Structures are given as C-alpha cells and as structure tokens.
C-alpha cells in the first residue's frame, strides 16, 4: 500500500512536471498575444466559423492546439483567453472527443488498424458535438 502511494506520488510528480512544461509556456505565449492584440486578428479571422459551435473566434486557437498538440496545450490557451462556463463546456467536449490527433494516431497505428477513418471520425464527432451543444446549451 505504501509502495503504491509512493509510486503514485512519483508518477504524479513526473507527469505534473511534463504537463507544466507545456501548459505554462503556452499560457504565457497566449497572454502575450492577447496583450499585443494579435489574438484580436485571430478572433476576427475565425469568428464566422466558430459561431457555428457557439465560441468566439479566438477559441479556434484552443481547438487547433488541442487537435494538433494535446489537451494540456489547449488548457494553457483556454487559461489565457477569457471564456465563460458555457464556452469551456463546449470546448471541453469537443477536445475530449478529438485531441492529440498526431500522437494518438501514432499509438493507434501500432495496433494495426485503419487510421484515416478513425481520425476523420473523431474530428467529425468533435465538430458535430460542438454544433449540437451550441443549440442545446
């Protein structure tokens, strides 16, 4: 039992460190972009598309980070943006369904299954769930 707790603490600490190495720099970068006004351009660019899922244009940054990098990067982005509970719930659902597509794609390829349909499925589910939640919430 003590061994299990020790193992848990050790694992938590190393996972924590590796996550923070992602979350904090991403968060600082996004906050910097916010203060310099770059996020504003991004917001305008993606606003029409993101309206479909009930999110501001700047949330596209969180979505792209989550899809291509991972959930922790997306968390850093979300922390830097000013989003409400409704927006975070929609983003959380969309990112839960599809995230780390590159890395998890590589893992799933190791079990020798068809990769392309699975990744497309995840992205489609993610977008559709966003549209549905935008209507429901």
């Amino acid at each position: 039992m003590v061994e299990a707790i020790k193992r848990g603490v050790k694992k938590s600490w190393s996972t924590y460190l590796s996550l923070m190495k992602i979350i904090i720099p991403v968060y600082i970068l996004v906050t910097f972009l916010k203060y310099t006004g770059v996020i504003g351009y991004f917001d305008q660019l993606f606003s029409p598309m993101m309206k479909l899922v009930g999110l501001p244009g700047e949330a596209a940054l969180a979505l792209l980070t989550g899809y291509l990098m991972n959930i922790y990067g997306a968390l850093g982005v979300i922390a830097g943006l000013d989003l409400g509970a409704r927006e975070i719930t929609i983003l959380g659902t969309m990112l839960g369904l599809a995230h780390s597509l590159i890395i998890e794609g590589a893992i799933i390829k190791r079990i020798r299954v068809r990769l392309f349909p699975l990744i497309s499925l995840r992205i489609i589910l993610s977008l559709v769930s966003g549209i549905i939640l935008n209507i429901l919430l």
Partner: protein
Amino acid sequence: MDWAGFFFEVFNGSLGMLKTVAVILFPLLIGIEIVDELGLLDKFSSLFAPILRIFKLPKDASLPLIVAQVFGITYGAGLIIRSVEDDKLSSSELMTVAVFLMVCHAVVEDTLLFVAIGGNGLIMLGSRVILAILITYLYSKYFVNNEKIDIEELVEADCC
C-alpha cells in the same frame, strides 16, 4: 503594451494553473495506483460486460478497455497488442475496440481538468461516453461482418 498588466496576469495565472492541475493530478494518479494495487481493476472490468455484449466483443476485450479509461490510450494500446498476439482478439474485434477507444479514453482525467477551469463535467463526460457507445454500436452492427465471426467461433468450438 501594458507590461505591468501582462506580468501581473502571467504570474497570477501561472500560479493558478500550477495549483489547479496539481489538485487534480496528484489525488487522481495516486488513487489509480492504490486501485491497481488492491486489484480492483479486474472487478471494474466486469462493469464493461453489458457494453461488450452490445458490441459483440469477447470478455478479453474488457481489460484493455478499462485500462485505457484509467491509464490512458498508450497503456490501453499496449494491452491490446498483447491480446492480439495471444490470439484473444480477431482483427475485426480489434477495430471495434479501437473505434471505442479513439472516442473514449482517459475520460476521468480529461473531464476533471476542464471541470477545474470551469466546465460542466456531466455534459462533457456524458456526451463523450454516450457518443462512444452509440458510434461503436453502429460500427459493430453495420460495418463488422458478424457471420464471419460466428463461423470462426464455430470452427474453434469444433476443434477444441
């Protein structure tokens, strides 16, 4: 640019994230180790029995499924590879497991992290689990050639 405001926000926000993630990660990962130590994972895997029946999967698929929920997809995939090498899962069953796992894995950790920054956990967890079950059901019903599996099973039953 408002440098003072920027540094103030970055400092406070970083501290907030450090705390938020720690509060979730440490209890969760330590709890998982304890559950694993007590051998409860095998018991939990019986929770998957009704779902496995819907998907027409054998009992052997339950351990990779539960491990992927608890430890994430990397460990789940490791167990799946072993199941395939041990001939416990056929290639069509493997694809069914993969469809479910792609949509639904490490749900506790992912959900809690978004709950910590203000999301609604029930909606996030619920939609993911329901979608995973629905999609995998549709996949196993319409895309898997079930007759072929039955024949394989019959042949196995006859020979042993």
